[in-house]
């Protein structure tokens, strides 16, 4: 099967080949979602070089896994977005930890806004939707989505039981996605 014939395959065929660990499917899955996957990493890491490493590492990790994806996981694009985003959040956490240590060693103050979300105007769509959530869901979602904190850290920061935070994140995510769905259907996708 040559590269040109792969482009004729639909998303379902690509997902099946990806699940079967077919080498061409990994490269093709990236090509079809390149801008989205790179953007997801870039929006978390705010650094082009880190974003490139992150996307490559996420795909390499899937390639090394024995069974990273199955049809039950649903849409391959969604699966890849979450994999890349989780990889980006892990890298960001490691970077923040190391920066704290290194800057302490150098006797410098840590700029806690170093990873502040970029381009506030462009990201307003999602921010407005988060702000429209009920107050008890707004903070857990914002902390989970933008700060990369774990649910344990969020519960401690908001002084709420872990179970409460989990259920608020669950409800908040569903509401947020529902409010953004109509916007996405109006033509923001694909960009």
């Amino acid at each position, binding site marked *: 099967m040559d590269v040109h014939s792969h482009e004729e395959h639909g998303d379902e065929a690509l997902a099946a080949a990806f699940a079967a660990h077919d*080498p061409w499917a*990994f*490269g093709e899955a*990236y*090509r079809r979602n*390149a*801008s*989205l*996957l*790179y*953007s*997801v990493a*870039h*929006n978390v890491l705010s650094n082009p070089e880190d974003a*490139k490493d992150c996307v*490559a590492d996420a795909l390499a990790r899937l*390639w090394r*896994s*024995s069974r990273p994806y*199955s049809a*039950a*996981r*649903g*849409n391959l*694009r*969604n*699966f890849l*977005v*979450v994999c890349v*985003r*989780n990889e*980006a*959040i*892990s890298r960001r956490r490691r970077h923040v*930890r*190391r920066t704290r*240590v290194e800057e302490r*060693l150098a006797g410098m103050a840590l700029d806690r806004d170093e990873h502040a979300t*970029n381009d506030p105007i*462009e*990201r307003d769509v*999602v921010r407005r939707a988060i702000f429209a959530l009920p107050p008890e869901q707004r903070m857990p*979602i914002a902390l*989970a*989505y933008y700060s990369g904190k*774990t*649910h*344990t850290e*969020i519960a401690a920061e908001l002084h709420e039981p872990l179970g409460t935070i*989990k259920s608020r*994140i*669950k409800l908040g*995510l569903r509401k*947020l*996605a529902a409010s*953004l*769905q109509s916007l*996405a259907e109006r033509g923001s*996708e694909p*960009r």
Partner: protein
Amino acid sequence: MRREHTGDLAELYALGALSEIERRAVEAHLSECADCAREVALAERDVALIASLETRHDAPPELAARIDGLFRANRPNRMIPAALAAVLILGLLPSVYLWPENRRMHDAMVAQNAAMDRLASGSHRTVGFRSEGAPLGAEVMYPPDGSWYVVVVRNATKALQVAWMHDGERTMLGNAVPRGNVAMLYLPKSHRMDRLALMDGDRVVAEAELPWQRTPPDRPTVRSE
């Protein structure tokens, strides 16, 4: 997690709000449980929708080539023997002359990275070296069990030796070598030591007394300076 279902962790997984250990446990479970995989797929759909509405950046063209290279390794390539020969001639042979220096730099970078990971990942004490009662700008960091030590000297202009002072003797542990204006020595495997000294030749430049009482749980790091 392999036997337990993901339950209310699906949304947290998709949002990236799990710790590394939790995330890997969920991923291991998802490869075996179709029900949980479907549950997570719903949450992934929501997160992917949100992420797709964020700022878009054009993917750099070189990234596609790099990613293709990741999976090209599986394909037979008749050019490999010739490419290996070229690497030997053009790359490996000249590098023999630079090997000792490259090796030193590599070892120093590996040691520094390992030390950073240790300091970032667990609780540890920080004790300052003192010279004639005054702080020197040098510290030693170590965990409650004394299994490793990191010695850092700021504004270092030359390498200093680090010694363990015990029973009227000194045991040389290694050199804190400057990189930039910070010198560091990482001792990855060690034991409890009560007193360390920074030495310049035979001269003791500064000393640090290392206390060993338990670290209070709400204050994982103690500065004694």
